[in-house]
């Protein structure tokens, strides 16, 4: 449960950041918090008590003592996707800073209504 709670808190902190924080960088970090929380959640889902990594690096490893491989695979995919989004987000932030000369999201509202 505690692992779940950790991931929920990460997600919640991330969401809090994207709602409350005004700095573009902080918002991007908030996104990352959410993503990390989700990844932690995925991995925790797959954990099986006393399970080991699902790798048959030696003969005779018992598959029933292994953790679920699917969440690990999913996390791997999710991490790359998060990294991609992060890279793009940072690129946007840099450009926004160039255009607006500020990192304050409140001042970046030329588009509205």
């Amino acid at each position, binding site marked *: 449960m505690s692992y779940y709670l950790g991931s929920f808190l990460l997600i919640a902190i991330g969401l809090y950041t994207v709602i409350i924080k005004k700095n573009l960088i902080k918002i991007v970090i908030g996104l990352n918090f959410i993503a990390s929380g989700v990844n932690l959640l995925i991995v925790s889902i797959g954990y099986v008590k006393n399970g*080991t*990594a699902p*790798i048959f*690096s030696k003969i005779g490893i018992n598959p029933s003592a292994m953790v679920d491989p699917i969440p690990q695979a999913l996390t791997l995919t999710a991490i790359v996707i998060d990294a991609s989004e992060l890279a793009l987000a940072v690129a946007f932030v*840099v450009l926004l*800073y160039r255009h607006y000369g500020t990192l304050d999201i409140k001042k970046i509202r030329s588009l509205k209504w």
Partner: protein
Amino acid sequence: MSILDWIYLAIVSIGAVLAVVRMVKGPDVTNRVVGLDVFTTITVALFVFFAMIFDRYIYIDVALVYGLLAFIGVLVIARFIERGF
């Protein structure tokens, strides 16, 4: 895990906690990064230790990757601290 392993884990963990304390306390970015640097180094050692405990050779690769990324991370951060964007 023998009692020796547990003691080892305890000592190193306290070290990790202290590093985190510096990370949180700061007072500036550089101090935090130093805390982070110490923390990652400890983590690398721990990875290798866990590889032994769990008898998974492959965790050492993980340690290596982690160490490498931490190293590059420190350089990048140092650069950005120094020159800004």
